[in-house]
């Protein structure tokens, strides 16, 4: 009962702040809304008995990624720059992308993919130890692939900056 109430509270706040991210005009306010949204998601992780994920969410996304976002926004003084419109409002492209994502989510949920995720969560809090063990045994390959992907992205960013400099 109480948990249900908290869930509704966090979800409504998450959706509301996520909408604010895309509708606000001032980029700094967009970033702040995103921070609020990430906190709500951390709250949802907590309700799913995974304090580790909740804390890591705050640590990585709120503590590091969003600080860099704000840094970039303030450094470029984006108040002056108006957002270029990627798509005009009448274009069908954004709607098609949204529909595609929705279909994908539904396929995961109804195709039984969610069961595999639910297997890990239980009524008891997930310990850091079990989490680490699963990550480094059962899911070792995806874990390594993601690490390589991040490394490639980092190298790519550095190469792009170096090239544009000269």
């Amino acid at each position, binding site marked *: 009962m109480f948990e249900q109430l908290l869930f509704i509270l966090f979800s409504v706040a998450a959706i509301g702040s996520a909408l604010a991210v895309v509708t606000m005009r001032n980029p*700094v306010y967009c970033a702040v809304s995103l921070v609020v949204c990430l906190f709500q998601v951390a709250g949802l992780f907590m309700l799913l008995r995974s304090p*580790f994920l909740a804390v890591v969410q705050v*640590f990585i996304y709120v*503590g*590091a990624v969003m*600080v*860099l976002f*704000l840094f970039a926004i303030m450094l470029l003084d984006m108040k002056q720059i108006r957002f270029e419109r990627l798509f005009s409002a009448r274009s069908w492209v954004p709607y098609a992308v949204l529909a595609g994502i929705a279909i994908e989510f539904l396929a995961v949920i109804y195709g039984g993919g969610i069961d595999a995720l639910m297997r890990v969560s239980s009524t008891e809090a997930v310990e850091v130890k079990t989490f680490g063990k699963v990550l480094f045994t059962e899911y070792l390959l995806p874990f390594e692939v993601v690490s390589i992907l991040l490394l490639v992205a980092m190298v790519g960013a550095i190469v792009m900056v170096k090239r544009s400099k000269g």
Partner: protein
Amino acid sequence: MTEAVIEVAIIFIKVVVLGFILFSLPLPLTWIERKIAGHIQVRLGPFRVGPHGILQPFADMVKMLFKEDVIPEQADRFLFRVAPIISMVPVFMVFVAIPFGESWTIPFINKEVTLYVADMNVGLLYILAISGVAVYGIILGGWASNSKYALLGGLRSSAQMISYEVALTFACIGVVMLASSLNLIDIVKTQTGGLTNWNVFYLPVGPLWFIIFFIAGLAEINRIPFDLPEDEGTLAAGFHVEYSGIRFAYFMLAEYIAMVSMSVLAVVLFFGGWDDPTGLGFLPPIVWFLLKVGFFIYLFMWIRFTLPRYRYDQLMSIGWKILIPLSLLNILVTGWMII
């Protein structure tokens, strides 16, 4: 039912007491800091209000409360008002996870209460994550003031925070590896039984962990020699240049509480928490704990009035080129030692 009510009431009382202590702690700390500054610089420090100026903080408090709350015309009014509160709330939240001892029996009613609010599995990670959030107050305050000095202060703060948070976390990893737990109470328990069991004396890597932690911690709480966000020499007062009155007091309060939390963390992670180094037990554990914390607070103040400030590029190269590689190497060596 009554059991649950009593439990909730105990937690409530603990939070209120802790909040009250933390709110009033900056009063003695400002006085002590100014006295220490005075004596280090061979002068008296505050001396007029009360004997040896001991009532000076109250005079300051009254002054802060009655000052006009100025908001610059071009400022972003909403964020300008919210920023001091954003910087203040996380530093209080950190103390939820900090243990001050194991338990204490209340005399007369013989009820044992634990000396921490929450026993978290991920306590250390929680503290590091939440204390990282406090930087938003500085960044947003700097941006919302709409002044060049304040904006530069905010920018410096964000870059500094990102750089040193990495080193700070890496320095803690060694301790976590040794205790094989993120729970602060477990970390203290592995260090009990005299000086040699303290993490700082875990040779040869222990002292290095602590030095990295301490330097990164200094940068994390914006104290000299790393107080670049509020560099008086070049940025006037940095991010809080436009703030006055009670909002300025909030920033100061946050800074002092952050210093206390960093001292507490140093004691818990590296100096055995409430462990009695003599093993004689003539002082209760909580007294040992507070003595150690007091020593670190004094150390922070001592350093403030002894060292000059680093330049911004020096700050960045110390963080990225020295502290982070050193802490990575340290983790590697620790791993070998444990295996």
